């Protein structure tokens, strides 16, 4: 069952169209919402939360109508906004417990659970400190904690690594990876940072200028047509190139100083057999053999610019 089924969603801010007839089916698991700044990622999340009224379109999220069952839906969703946000004058544990109560948890349960999620997010030691005294990294973590407190089945994370130093970013990515795998929580991560999406998500939705440009498993998006392979030799060998060509393989180019990209209209196993046979004949030493892939950045640029 998909987490969300969005059809023909159009959102306008005055004359500016932020989402233009946007349609997508968001599957279960950890999904990345990838796109440059201003692509419409945050608008999509805020529309699903009911913050923005769409000009047209429909959205079913977790089996509920996003625009009619707002309160019920928000009870099942956890949202970590892009901006710093907290309730002023509260300690971390007070803030997270309050967020739980706002979601409908009884106060005793909310307090118990606040302690749990703060420990999980690595803020156990600082839970009695006023949130306003927190560093940027800690503020990001507490935003995650408040989103998790009521045990949502869907977590919407908007630019979760914003403003974090490398260590903080590493910790945040680990947390997202951990929460989205094997915990029965679906996660939608919105980011313009490709490495973050690649590290945490299994699937992506590529958004550009308010439209969905590409969607699928990250592996599939990185896959090149025709099953090319990258063969790394110990040193450049013209004899090897001759031998592979004789065996019906096409040389696509060099992707490193000693790495050849080759392609043949056969299976991966057959390609491997031909490559090793050619290397034996050319007396070339193979250092690496792998299925050729493009980077996520290349896939992104191709989807955006065609």
């Amino acid at each position: 069952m998909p987490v969300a089924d969005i059809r023909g969603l159009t959102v306008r801010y005055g004359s500016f169209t932020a989402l233009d007839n946007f349609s997508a089916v968001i599957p279960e698991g950890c999904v990345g919402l990838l796109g440059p700044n201003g692509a419409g990622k945050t608008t999509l999340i805020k529309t699903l939360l009911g913050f923005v009224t769409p000009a047209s379109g429909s959205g079913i999220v977790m089996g509920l109508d996003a625009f009619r069952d707002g309160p019920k839906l928000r009870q099942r969703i956890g949202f970590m906004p892009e901006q710093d946000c907290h309730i002023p004058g509260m300690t971390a544990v007070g803030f997270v417990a309050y967020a739980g109560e706002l979601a409908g948890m009884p106060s005793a349960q909310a307090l118990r659970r606040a302690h749990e999620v703060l420990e999980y997010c690595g803020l156990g030691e600082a839970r009695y400190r006023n949130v306003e005294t927190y560093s940027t990294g800690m503020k990001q973590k507490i935003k995650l904690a408040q989103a998790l407190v009521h045990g949502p089945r869907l977590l919407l994370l908007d630019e979760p690594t914003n403003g974090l130093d490398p260590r903080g970013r590493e910790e945040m990515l680990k947390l997202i990876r951990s929460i989205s795998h094997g915990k029965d929580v679906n996660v939608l991560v919105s980011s313009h940072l490709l490495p973050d999406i690649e590290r945490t998500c299994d699937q992506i939705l590529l958004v550009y200028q308010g439209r969905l440009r590409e969607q699928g498993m990250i592996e599939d998006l990185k896959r090149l047509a025709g099953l090319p392979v990258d063969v790394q030799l110990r040193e450049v060998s013209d004899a090897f190139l001759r031998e592979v060509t004789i065996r019906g393989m096409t040389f696509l180019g060099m992707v490193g100083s000693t790495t050849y990209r080759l392609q043949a209209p056969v299976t991966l196993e057959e390609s491997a057999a031909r490559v090793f046979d050619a290397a034996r004949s050319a007396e070339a030493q193979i250092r690496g053999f792998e299925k050729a892939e493009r980077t996520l950045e290349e896939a992104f640029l191709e989807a955006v610019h065609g």
Partner: protein
Amino acid sequence: MANAPIADLSYRGYDGPLESPTQRWWVIAKTNVRRTFKNKWYWVATITSGWYYLLMMIIVYFVELAAESNPRQQGPFALATFMKRVIWVDQFVHGLSWAQIMIFVVTLIAGAGVIANDNRANALLVYLSRPCSKFDYVIGKFIGVFLPILLTVALPSLVYFLYGALSYRAYGFLSNDPWMIVKILLVCPLIAAFYSALIIGVSSLFNQGRMAGAAFAGLYFLTNFFTQMMVIAWQASTRVSRGVFRAEEGNPLAAKLYYASVDGTMIGTTKAIMNTDGSPYFGLPSPVAMIPAPPLVPMLLISGIVTFLSLWLAWSRIRAVEVVK
């Protein structure tokens, strides 16, 4: 094993109960009330707001004491003469009127930052991403400010009423106006609602509690200054007749404009509901006549409109996203 944390740091889902996503406003209100009650200055202001009643009790106590020691006493402070001058319902009008400054202080404590600080900390994103609507938010904040102010307004009056009902029955405390308690119970929530709505509206305009507080104080004192000018104008326009100002001869426009301020509106509404112009403070002899009570319906209308408009202002300012047009 030696490095293993004692606490269980793994994530577990929450399968416990979740209340229906209605009445989230009560959670917001409860938190605001709790936070205000933790402020010691709130309690100082609440207790201080009953100073008129306290002074009245002390005066009556000493007048009674003097009467006990000298039963045949004469003059304005003789027990019978003094008690004849005291109109009990007017004491509540005075008590509530003099409490206005403390109600103003409590309003600042309970409400100045209530929305302004949320604006600064983007807290709306936390509220509105939960099953809370704008309605829940505004009403929750309103009730969260209303209840502490109500306590400040009502507590001294009710304590004084109880004390009076037990101690001054013989002096006509209950028989003067049998509806007095009903009127008090009507006036107190009205005053609390008026101040709560006003501070909520002002607070929604700012990003800092301090700025909202300063703006509310400015509004309060500027209008109060105008009111004081009207008092002077009205008293100057009354004619002295045998040393006593005669109310019926005062400037009627000044008498009406006297109520055109934050506290004046509430004093006027209180007088109108209590159905009295008021009498000299503490039942002491005074040549100064009180400004007549305004008509009830217009006062209720003005209070209602200001309350409604303030809440509407807060409502219209609350958005989870900045919409650029």
